[in-house]
């Protein structure tokens, strides 16, 4: 393995991930030794409005995929309205390719807990929930343990550190539904219903949990807060780009020598990330990749130098999403990859909106036909037409996301589809597998 060049190494910005190297950082003792809960003490001495302004000044944007400015979101919570306010952390990590929140909660759960307390203080919430993906059992173990430790130390509960501020925090496990990563579906689920998205407006800022003002933020967003409180907005902005400030955890998986988590200055390119990951695996050449999970349009080797920040990826026709870069090579088939993602969207569609529920059902069948060597040229038009009818016609982004890999793979790799249809590629699915597919 070749050593990455110094200028590439310089893009590494270990901030949120830094404590993962300390084996016991999940426990409060180690956490407190490593700046832990210092940000909370500092924040509780400040006025809540000044904290909101600090986050605005930092330029922090949501780490869950949408990139909405966090300080602005907090500022939308009406103050003095006499209603209870809520902070809900979206820890329902499930976007295919994404694997950054689980290690964070497993190896440094207190940073999330501390962020929750500071954020709740800023928006004047006395109850907060962490909605964690059900399957994330070890992360939940560590998180529940951290919450218990924080209560015991007086960081949670009544009159936190003598400040007069009260906060109850509950870790709430989901039960296996990708859709609950969508914020309004998450709120419905947290209220004890099927997780289905709500029509917006009204937005959660005014009508969220229990129809009260609610901030819903991703794990990485909230875990960033203590660092900004400690280091300041100007320091935070020394990382990243002008409009996409700060560090970001890039999750690299697939055909590279060393897959894993790389926390880097926002705006790093895939070429640089692959360099950090030790290059492609021997015998593999980059063919296609997702910049931020399977709901973001595929990119190709032409896009190696696209800055991976919110603006850069959008300009290249995709979405930064969750910075889950899944890397596929010339030995992987984009048609099969897309088919497998569609099986996922079909399975995870909550069924509320007809275009998403029916469209994904039928697209899966078209893909099976193509991959079994029984596709027609007309099938490709059918796929594009179906995508047209799903995109923008569902309540939430799941429907939109489902179309991303279909339209982008047809844009860049139409020949691969034609090779199945015209018999140049051997069928990937047999009739037997067609029956077995759920």
């Amino acid at each position, binding site marked *: 393995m070749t050593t990455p060049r110094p200028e590439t*190494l310089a893009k590494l910005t270990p901030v949120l991930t830094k404590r993962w190297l300390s084996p016991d950082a999940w426990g409060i003792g180690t956490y407190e030794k490593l700046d832990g809960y210092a940000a909370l003490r500092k924040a509780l001495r400040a006025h809540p409005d000044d904290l909101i302004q*600090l986050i605005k000044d930092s330029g922090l944007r949501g780490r869950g995929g949408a990139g909405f400015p966090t300080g602005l979101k907090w500022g939308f919570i009406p103050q003095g309205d006499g209603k209870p306010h809520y902070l809900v952390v979206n820890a329902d990590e499930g976007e295919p390719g994404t694997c950054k929140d689980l290690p964070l909660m497993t190896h440094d759960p207190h940073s999330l807990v501390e962020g929750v307390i500071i954020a709740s203080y800023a928006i004047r919430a006395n109850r907060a929930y962490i909605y964690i993906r059900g*399957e994330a*059992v070890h992360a939940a173990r560590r998180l529940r343990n951290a919450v218990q430790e924080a209560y015991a130390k007086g960081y949670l509960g009544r009159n936190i550190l003598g400040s007069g501020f009260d906060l109850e925090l509950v870790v709430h496990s989901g039960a296996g539904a990708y859709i609950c990563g969508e914020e309004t579906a998450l709120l419905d689920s947290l209220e*004890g219903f099927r997780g289905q998205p709500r029509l917006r407006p009204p937005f959660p800022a005014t009508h969220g949990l229990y129809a009260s003002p609610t901030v819903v933020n991703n794990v990485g967003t909230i875990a960033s807060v203590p660092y900004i409180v400690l280091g300041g907005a100007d320091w935070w902005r020394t990382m990243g780009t002008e409009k996409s400030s700060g560090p970001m955890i890039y999750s690299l998986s697939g055909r590279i020598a060393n897959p894993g*988590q790389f926390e880097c200055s926002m705006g790093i390119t895939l070429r640089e990330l692959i360099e950090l990951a030790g290059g492609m695996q021997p015998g593999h050449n980059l063919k296609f990749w997702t910049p931020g999970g399977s709901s973001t349009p595929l990119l190709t080797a032409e896009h190696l130098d696209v800055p991976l920040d919110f603006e850069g990826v959008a300009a290249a026709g995709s979405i930064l999403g969750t910075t889950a870069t899944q890397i596929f090579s010339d030995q992987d088939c984009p048609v099969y990859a897309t088919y497998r993602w569609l099986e996922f969207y079909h399975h995870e569609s909550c069924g509320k909106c007809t275009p998403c529920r029916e469209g994904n059902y039928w697209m899966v069948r078209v893909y099976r036909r193509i991959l079994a060597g029984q596709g027609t040229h007309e099938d490709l038009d059918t796929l594009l037409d179906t995508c047209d009818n799903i995109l923008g016609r569902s309540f939430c982004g799941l429907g939109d996301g489902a179309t991303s890999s279909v339209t982008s793979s047809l844009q860049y790799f139409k020949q691969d589809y034609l090779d199945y249809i015209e018999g140049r590629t051997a069928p990937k699915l047999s009739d037997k597998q067609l029956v077995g597919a759920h």
Partner: protein
Amino acid sequence: MTVFTEETRARAREIIARYPADRSRSALLPLLHLVQSVEGYVSPAGVEFCAEVLGLNKAQVGAVATFYTMYKRKPTGDYLVSVCTNTMCNVLGGQEVYDTLAEHLGVGHDETTEDGRITLEHAECLAACDYGPVMTVNYDFFDGVDPRTALGVVEELRAGGRPMPTRGARLCSLKEMSVQLAGFADEREGAVADGGPGEPTLRGLRLAEQHGISVPGFDPNTPIRSKAEADKAAEQAKAAQAAGAAANPPAADRKPAGDGAGAQQRNLKEAEAKK
């Protein structure tokens, strides 16, 4: 309804108490995990129990129970073996792992072996793509599996053993795991401490450590500006600008003050326009 003991009822009360008094329905998901911890699946009796303690009707509870993948609707084995067959794990060999286990165990998706030990399922992305292909046993990870190692794990399980997951805590039964999912602490001595981070998780950190890279300029004592101070600073900046001091370049790497807010406002407008 004898299957649910007083202990279960006490736990149910504890779960309900976590949520605001008039919002007890929020307790439904953990309660469904709780009844699953008793019976190994959500049975009609489990649905009835949840309905009773929350003052809902059975249809309301059933509608929720059938929506979520983790609530099983027929008896399960002691160990739920989930193999990720989503795209990344799939192309790295996860499909082969699943097919091998299905053939070896003689069961299909969501089916249980005759000895009641193992329920097999193919799972969607388990959020461990850097360790792919992965499988989980009662949701704790076995990383980088292939057909041979996966068979080894299930064979050990069938023989009454409990192989140690690659990451995560030592195994427990699916019923015991459901107690944790209902929101109760893992009481097993040392279980929370089990499982250090794997190398992929630490990859970027190791590089940074090896090359002595950290983010400069971090001062934990940086003051938080109060609104009064911020207003004063803004006024001074304005005055300075009026005095022709605008030619002063900002410090290296620092972005000009106020630039961010404008970008955010624009972003908000764009977001609003899209809606």
